[in-house]
């Protein structure tokens, strides 16, 4: 990793070295051309990999195969004193603390990522998706939790709340939509799809026809959107990604339902899955012509408070329209780490 590579692939070990100034979109397309993938959804984003490595933004909702630590096997950085240093490349090691975790996510400029070794795999033989309408989001989450904990984690997960579905499909339903998918070799994908599909059918989930409007939108969109569509008079105000343990998600959903009488609507989606929890993405909307920054801030602080009470680990808080009055730094960092990192 002494040189700055645009892209260099070791297909035998499933590794690729890339320059950190490239965007995830560029990386994924370049890998695809060589017959490989890093499992990145290409989202038309101009943010370089470096910003994700620094922890300015999170990559997780756009990653199919795990989190940034699953993706990054090693990295090369420039330290604050100008020296270039690289982490040792090994699948695992017991040689002291893992400094790769020290270098990723510092959210500051004293470490500049130069290049990174990513875990890659050959382009999948098959990719399948399915969408289900579930009576209860909690039940659907329960199915997903058990499947993940049994080792049948889908490569794609999105859930869309009833308001989004009603808006797309019409009607008065109160059902949530769950979109999931697998990638890999044909037989394996078919086995896993069938297993999860059977579980959803068992909770009276109704398969969504791909031909329907909602099905077409959700099922075929690439990348799959984090949130459902919004009405013309609505505007996205802020997006929050946070991690919760499974046991905290049902009470969180309940609290959000109780808060449904809030002034501005909220969209919630499960966008990541792992053993002990999930990634919940939230978007707060405002109504056109009625926007009041102070009210948006108040609403948002209420929502963040609800999440904090459920032991949220906030990963990203991104205002989408102007400045908001929130204690973003307090929520995104812990004081001990800050004190330690400050020279």
């Amino acid at each position, binding site marked *: 990793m002494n040189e700055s590579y645009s892209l260099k692939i070791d297909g035998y070990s*499933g590794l690729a070295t890339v320059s950190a100034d490239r965007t995830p979109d560029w990386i994924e397309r370049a890998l695809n051309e060589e017959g490989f993938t890093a499992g990145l959804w290409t989202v038309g984003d101009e943010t370089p990999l470096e910003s994700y490595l620094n922890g300015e933004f999170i990559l997780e909702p756009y990653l199919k195969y795990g989190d940034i630590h699953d993706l990054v096997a090693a990295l090369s950085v420039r330290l604050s004193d100008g*020296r270039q240093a*690289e*982490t040792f490349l090994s699948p695992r090691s017991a040689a002291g603390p893992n400094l790769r*975790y020290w270098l*990723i996510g510092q959210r500051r400029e004293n470490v500049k990522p130069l290049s990174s070794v990513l875990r890659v795999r050959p382009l999948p033989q098959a990719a399948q998706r399915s969408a289900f309408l579930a009576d209860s989001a909690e039940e659907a989450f329960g199915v997903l939790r058990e499947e993940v904990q049994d080792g049948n984690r889908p490569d794609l997960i999105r859930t869309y709340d009833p308001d989004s579905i009603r808006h797309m499909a019409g009607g008065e339903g109160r059902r949530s939509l769950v979109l999931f998918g697998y990638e890999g070799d044909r037989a394996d994908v078919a086995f896993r799809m069938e297993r999860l599909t059977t579980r959803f059918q068992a909770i009276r989930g109704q398969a969504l026809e791909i031909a329907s409007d909602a099905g077409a939108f959700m099922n075929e969109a690439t990348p799959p959107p984090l949130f459902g569509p919004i009405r013309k008079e609505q505007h996205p105000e802020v997006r929050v990604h946070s991690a919760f343990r499974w046991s905290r998600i049902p009470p969180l959903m309940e609290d959000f339902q109780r808060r449904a009488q809030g002034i501005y609507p909220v969209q919630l989606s499960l966008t990541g899955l792992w053993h*002990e929890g999930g990634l919940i993405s939230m978007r707060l909307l405002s109504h056109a012509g009625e926007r009041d920054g102070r009210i948006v801030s108040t609403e948002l602080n209420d929502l963040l408070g609800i999440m904090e009470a459920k032991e949220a680990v906030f990963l990203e808080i991104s205002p989408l329209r102007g400045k908001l009055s929130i204690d973003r730094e307090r929520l995104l960092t812990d004081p001990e780490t800050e004190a330690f990192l400050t020279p």
Partner: protein
Amino acid sequence: MRLASSTLDLKAVEELGGIVGKAHVSVSLPDRVVHSRDMWPRSVMWTRRGFFPHVPDVIVSPGSTEEAAEVLRWAVAADCSVIPYGAGSGVCAGALPIRGGLILSLKRMDRIRNLDSESMVAEIEAGIYGETLERRLNPMGFTMGHFPSSIYCSTLGGYLAARSAGQMSSRYGKIEDMVVGLEFVTPDGVIHRTRPMSKGGGRLDWNQIILGSEGTLAVITAGWMKLHRKPEHRCFQSYHFNGLRQGLDAMRRVMQAGVRPSVLRLYDELDTIIASTHGGMTEEESRDDIEEPTFLQKQVKETFESLKSKSLAHILKRPSVINRLSDKLPGKCLLVVLTEGRKDLALHDMGRVRAICERVDGRDSGEGPARYWLEHRYSVSYKQSKIFNSGGWVDTMEVATTWRDMESLYYGVKKAVAPHAFIMAHFSHAYRDGCCIYFSFASSSDSDEEMEDTYGRVWQEALKAVHDHGGTITHHHGVGLSKGAMLPVEFGDLWPVFQDIKLRIDPKNRMNPGKLGLK
């Protein structure tokens, strides 16, 4: 030999007793001797000849994190080194009190504090033995999935401090993959608790800085660990391959296909014969389509059967003979596979393994070797004393690299060690991008001095070969004192970064001095 008395005065002992209770402070000679060593073979050699160069001053056993924190504050104020201690089964001298000081024994801290069955995680204190933990979790329907061969004599704190791996790590992960949160105490006596969540996005992950720090930065007092449902079903299978390359190719393909077998373990040619000698291939279990052993294979097998006899030390004095013999073996390598979990998933996974192994011409050897392996999986650690009793020594070295460099690392280390010690290996703990090679060395000499000299030379040559061939110096035993000199080499330009972290957390260098290549 005469051992120095504890440097602690009565007042100090009373102060410590005031923190943890009088019964939990010991300056007795037997306790100090017991805590002066771990299972590092060199310290085993010393013990056998009554040499105890690193005796601690006091052993203190806190019953809670708060007590541990207070002991640390006391130690820093008293200018006393602190060595966190679990069960003393480490093999790299990670717990040797090389400057005397205070052994902080965590064995009293052995509770499961919290269990979140929905999120499948539990908060567990560091002093619990691995086997005790499984015995407590199993009746509740859970397992942690961590099964090191030392499970009866090692603790959670030791696993976390040295980045341990269990025999089923290909499915459940290494210990660092199992942790979602940590509780640890820094030398200033401050208790830190990371949030119990394994995914922090790009957020700086303190867990992974404290893990593997081997007590040089902090004392780990508890961990939030992932749990799994006890497997509903287990599948067994084994294959023989015509050579290491073919076997490794099968392993790589299995892992890169996304299959997560609980065990995927390939023996090199020599280890394959020993595995068979030990019953891995009994007559009724072996399949008809396995070829008869060749004359050479029979010779090697007989040689190893004789290792059980008194001539063991004599044979080990001529390692190059055995090594040359093993180099000429016609390549047959045994792969042992287990899959487990929900029945349909376990069967599905084994079906995929079977398809891959058949594609690379693996020959089905039935369930026998895999079942035998499972039944005897903890036996190996208890066989070492036989070799020491016979006047020889044995040690193991677990290294790892990417698939591309696997063979080069294997042959490089063999070549470096072969003149000095008998060497064989198996490949286990596999990942998408690479695997661990687990080498076993054994040798014997005419005198204690010569034995220690050979021991030192073997390690020096082996670690140099590992570095030259791009491997990490340790996959799951840790660094301790024995590999300390090589850690700065492996860290390269990041070594000053680690030194800086150490300096900022432990400016007086009170935490487990001399380990990890630190002063």
